[in-house]
């Protein structure tokens, strides 16, 4: 964070030509895998994330099960080729933290009480990393859960807001993350007005924080519409098949 040697904003436009409040091109596909109960592929620009859901099911490790609800098992993993330098496939400390943070971003919306003594497994594979992988992961996981038929109070979508060259910018990519002053990933369940993921890596004034949160909220709303659209399309596709 914050080398500050690279010019990130010029004439109100960012290094890739976007406005400060502009999302990257986002594409969403639901149901991309045959075996998983639910799956989704989400792209934020060059960031590409695959999520798959298995469950509710009975896992091998019985001792983790709970009598009053389903447990959520979540793994966020970056493929070796997803990063600029090859990453070892072994889970890093960062991946362990993000697996927890993403699980806790999904917990509030999953109605886990319906499936006691089962496990709902969320496997996320980052295929290409260009900033915003954790928020794209939440967006994808939420859709994979929906396709798997897991009852949810609402969809969750995520986006990061950054501070670059002193400006707040929506959906920052890796260059902006690396040379910018702050990166604040946010995930929101818009229909519930609940923030389920909130982190900040960098420094903000209290005022900037409020603005950044508002910017994230607007971005999430757009992505949330795309999520609903993707599920509707999936549903129509299924209809056609029938």
């Amino acid at each position: 964070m914050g080398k500050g040697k690279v010019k990130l904003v010029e004439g109100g436009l960012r290094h890739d030509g976007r406005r400060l409040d502009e999302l990257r091109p986002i594409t969403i596909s639901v149901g991309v895998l045959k075996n998983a109960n639910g799956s989704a592929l989400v792209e934020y620009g060059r960031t590409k994330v695959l999520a798959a859901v298995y469950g509710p099911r009975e896992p091998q490790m019985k001792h983790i099960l709970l009598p009053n609800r389903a447990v959520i098992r979540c793994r966020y993993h970056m493929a070796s080729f997803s990063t600029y330098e090859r990453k070892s496939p072994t889970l890093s400390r960062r991946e362990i933290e993000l697996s927890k943070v993403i699980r806790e971003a999904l917990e509030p919306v999953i109605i886990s009480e319906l499936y006691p003594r089962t496990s709902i497994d969320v496997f996320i594979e980052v295929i290409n990393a260009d900033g915003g992988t954790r928020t794209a992961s939440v967006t994808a996981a939420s859709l994979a859960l929906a396709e798997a038929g897991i009852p949810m109070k609402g969809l969750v979508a995520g986006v990061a807001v950054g501070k670059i060259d002193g400006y707040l910018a929506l959906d920052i990519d890796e260059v902006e993350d690396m040379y910018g002053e702050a990166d604040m990933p946010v995930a929101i369940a818009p229909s519930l007005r609940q923030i389920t993921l909130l982190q900040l890596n960098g420094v903000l004034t209290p005022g900037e924080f409020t603005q950044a949160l508002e910017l994230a909220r607007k971005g999430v709303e757009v992505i949330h519409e795309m999520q609903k659209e993707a599920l509707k399309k999936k549903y129509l596709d299924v209809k056609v098949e029938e």
Partner: protein
Amino acid sequence: MSVTPSAEFLIPKLKSDVIISMLGRGVRPNGRKVDEVRPITVIKNYIPNADSSVLVKLGNTQVLTGIKLEVGSPFPDTPSEGNLMVNAEFVPTASPVFEPGPPDENAIELSRVVDRGIREARAVDLSKLVIIPGKKVWNIWVDIYVLDHDGNLTDASSIGALAALMLTKLPEVEVRDTGEIVVDRNNRKEQPLLNRSVVTVTIGKIGNYVLVDPDLEEESLLDSKFSVAVTDDGLIAGLQKSGMGYLAEDELPLLVNMALNKGKEILSIVKALLKDS
């Protein structure tokens, strides 16, 4: 893989109902006010073999932090910076639910939250850690050992890391013609390493109630936690929502303000404690 934990300390339903109804009246089971931090004590230089160290007590929570300074090589992509490494161990002495073994996701999250606060606030100027540019730098190991767990390990650890860094002074080094580096730990630079103070403030949420610095009993009832890293000049240097619940969009300004106020308070307490003793 991260898995939904079982509730670690089951509190009887009756007791939990009582506590929640108390919170409705603005009272906590331990008699504290909603925004009241537990008493903080700091014992300095507890570990002779560490370059600096503190034993911090936050109420009955005890955290031991030791700092070791090692001469090492810089990372290829930051040749003119030293390195700061924060590691947290949940020692099995601390709680009946801690098992020996490598740090679990909770210990890793804690150390990364503390690390990010220090790093992003630039509490330590890493460029001052260079011994021979591009070749030799100081590596700072901040090892946090949780000895007794009575809740809010994050803030206790953050106080520990801050206090230990405030006490840290780099040893004098001599670079011989041969390139050999001789470290003299009995002679240390006058100026302390730290150039900005930062501490996390953790606020717990139970339903619509919020409370600062939750203890273990309260933590067992929390829906979610929110940690804010606060600098001495009133900036936000890190955020982390954790736990199974959510933060309501409209309550965030309140939470952040509470954290900024409490952070200021904790920072003055720590500074006073370190001067005193």
